[in-house]
C-alpha cells in the first residue's frame, strides 16, 4: 500500500507541474496583457513598455516559464489590481472561508444523501424510492445560481428569516484562531457569533450541496442495491440481525467504495459551485474574489485562482484515492 501511495504522490507532483504549464500557456497565449492589466486604464506606451521590462514579458518563452516557476515556488503570485495587495495575501485570507463552505456542504450532502440513499435502496421500487429518484433527477437539472437566488428571494426577501448574504452581521467579530469562522466561534465560546455565522451559512450550504446530495443519494442507492444481492446479506438476516444493523454495518461498508469515489469527484464540482454561491451570497471566499477579479480582468488574481484551486482539487483526489485503497485493499491500479 505504501508503494501505491508513493506512486500516487509522484503522479500528483507530475500533474501539478503539467497544470502549471497549462496555466502558464493559457495566461501567456491569451490577449490580456499583464502589463496593461497591472497599470490600468490611462497607461501610456512608455509606462507599458517599462512594466513589460519589469515583468520580463519580452524574454523568450523558456525564460519566462522558468521565471514563472521560480515565482510560483517562492509563493509570489503577483499583485492584484482589485485589492492592490499581493495575491498570495488575498488568497491566504480568503481560502479558509471557501474551504469552510465546501467542507460543510460536503458534510451536509453526505449526512442527507447517504441515509436517503439507504432508505431508497431499502424501499426500492416503492413510491418512496420513485419520489426520491424523481427529486434527484430534478435536482440535477437545476442551476445552482438559480436555486441560490430563489432561496434568497424566499427566505430573505419574503420571509425575512435569514440574512441576504455576507459572513457575519455588522458589528460582530470572531477572534481568528484557525481562520474557519464556525470553528473559531466554537473554540472561543462565542455562541452568539456561532449562531450568526450559522444563519449566514445556511442558504449557501443548501444551494451548494443540492446537486451533490442528489448524486450521493443515487450512488448510495445503486451501490447498496448491488451489495444487497449478495448471499451474505440473507445469511445475516436469517441470523436474526436487525435490519438497521445489516444495512449500516454490513451493506454500507462494502458499498462505500463507489460512494467515496463519487465524493472525491463531486468535490471538484463543489469548488466550482462555490464560486457562484459565494458570489450570490457575498460569502468572502476565494470564489467571490475570483468573480470580482474576472470582471476586472485582474490577470494575476485569475491565474493564481486557477492554479490554487486545481492544486487543492489534486490534493483532494490524492486523499480520496488513498482512502479508497485503505477501505478496499484489493484495489489495484496500473
Amino acid at each position, binding site marked *: 500500500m505504501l508503494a501505491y501511495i508513493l506512486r500516487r504522490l509522484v503522479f500528483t507532483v507530475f500533474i501539478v507541474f*503539467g497544470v502549471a504549464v*497549462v496555466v502558464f500557456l493559457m495566461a501567456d497565449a491569451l490577449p490580456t496583457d499583464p502589463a496593461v492589466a497591472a497599470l490600468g486604464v490611462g497607461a501610456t506606451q512608455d509606462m507599458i513598455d517599462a512594466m513589460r521590462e519589469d515583468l520580463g514579458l519580452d524574454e523568450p518563452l523558456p525564460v519566462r516559464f522558468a521565471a514563472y516557476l521560480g515565482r510560483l515556488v517562492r509563493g509570489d503570485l503577483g499583485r492584484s489590481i482589485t485589492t492592490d495587495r499581493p495575491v498570495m495575501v488575498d488568497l491566504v485570507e480568503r481560502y479558509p472561508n471557501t474551504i469552510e463552505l465546501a467542507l460543510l456542504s460536503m458534510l451536509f450532502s453526505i449526512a442527507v444523501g447517504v441515509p436517503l440513499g439507504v432508505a431508497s435502496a431499502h424501499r426500492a421500487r416503492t413510491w418512496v424510492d420513485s419520489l426520491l429518484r424523481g427529486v434527484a433527477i430534478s435536482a440535477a437539472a437545476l442551476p445552482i*445560481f438559480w436555486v441560490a*437566488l430563489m432561496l434568497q428571494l424566499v427566505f430573505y426577501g419574503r420571509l425575512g428569516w435569514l440574512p441576504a448574504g455576507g459572513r457575519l452581521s455588522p458589528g460582530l467579530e470572531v477572534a481568528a484562531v484557525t481562520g474557519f469562522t464556525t470553528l473559531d466561534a466554537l473554540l472561543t465560546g462565542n455562541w452568539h457569533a456561532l449562531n450568526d455565522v450559522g444563519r449566514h451559512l445556511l442558504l449557501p450550504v443548501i444551494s451548494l450541496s443540492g446537486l451533490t446530495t442528489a448524486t450521493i443519494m443515487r450512488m448510495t442507492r445503486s451501490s447498496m442495491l448491488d451489495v444487497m444481492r449478495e448471499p451474505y446479506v440473507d445469511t445475516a438476516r436469517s441470523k436474526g440481525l436487525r435490519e438497521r444493523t445489516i444495512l449500516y454495518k454490513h451493506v454500507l461498508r462494502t458499498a462505500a467504495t463507489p460512494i467515496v469515489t463519487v465524493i472525491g469527484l463531486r468535490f471538484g464540482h463543489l469548488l466550482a459551485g462555490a464560486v457562484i454561491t459565494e458570489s450570490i451570497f457575498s460569502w468572502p471566499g476565494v470564489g467571490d474574489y475570483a468573480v470580482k477579479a474576472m470582471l476586472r480582468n485582474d490577470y494575476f488574481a485569475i491565474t493564481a485562482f486557477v492554479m490554487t484551486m486545481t492544486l487543492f482539487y489534486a490534493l483532494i483526489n490524492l486523499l480520496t484515492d488513498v482512502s479508497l485503497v485503505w477501505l478496499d485493499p484489493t484495489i489495484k491500479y496500473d
Partner: protein
Amino acid sequence: MLRFLRQGGIGLWIIALLAIVAIAPDVFATHAPLQISPQSRLEAPSAEHIFGTDHLGRDTYSRVVHGARISLWAGLRVVLLASLFGTLIGLVSGLYGGMMDRVLMRAVDVFLAFPYLILAMGIAALLGRSLENAIIGLALVWWAQYARLVRNKVLSLREMGYVTSARALGAGQARMMFRHILPNALTPIFVKASLDVGQAILATASLSFIGLGAAPPSPEWGAMITEARSHILDAWWLPTFPGVGIFLAVLGFNMLGDNLRDVVDPRSRS
C-alpha cells in the same frame, strides 16, 4: 436511428419542444425580445405579458423564447467542438499506441486534473467577455473526457476479431480508423454527448451568470438571471422563468442521455 427515437422517452419530447421553439422563436414570441418600453417597467405577469416585463419594459416571455435558441445552440456547440476534437485525439492515441499514446494521455490527465469549470472560467475571463469565448473555454476543457473515453474504447476494440482480420487483409491505419473502429466506438460517444449537452447548457448559463459569457441585452438565460438580481425583490418573475427554461433543457437532455445509456449498457442502470 429509430430505436434511438423510441428510446428517448420524455426527454426526447422535451428536447423536441425546445428545439422547435429554438428554430422558430418568432412563431412563439409575442413581442420583440429587445424592444424597450419604459412605461411598462417591472410589470407582473398578465394577459399581455405572460411572464411579465423586466426593468426596461421588455417582455420576459419573448426573451425566454428567444433565449432558447441561444442557450441550446451554445450547449450544442460546446459538445460538438469538444467531442470532435476529443474523439480525434482519442482515435489517434488508441490506434497508434506507443509514445504518442503515452504523451497524449498524459496531456489528457493534466486537463482532467482541473476542477469542473475553473479552467474554463480562467480562459473565458482572459479571452474577454462573450458567449463565443465561453464556448471556446468550455470546449478547451471538455475535450479531454472524450479523448480518454474514445481511446479506451479503441483499445478494447483493437483486440476484437474483426479488426485483426481486417489488418490481415491489408487494411491501412486510416481505413481501420474510419471504417472499422470508429462506428463501434461511436455509441458511448453519443450517450456521453447527449448527457453533456445538458451540462454544457448549464455551464454556459453559469458562465454568463458570473459575467463571463453572454452579455446583456442578449436574452441568454444565464444573462437574464443575472440581470434580474438587482430587481429580484420587486419582480420574482424575472429570474424564475429563464430558470425554468434552463431546468427543462437540462432535464430533457439528462433524461435522454439516461435512456440512451440504459439501452446501450443495461448493466449500468441505477
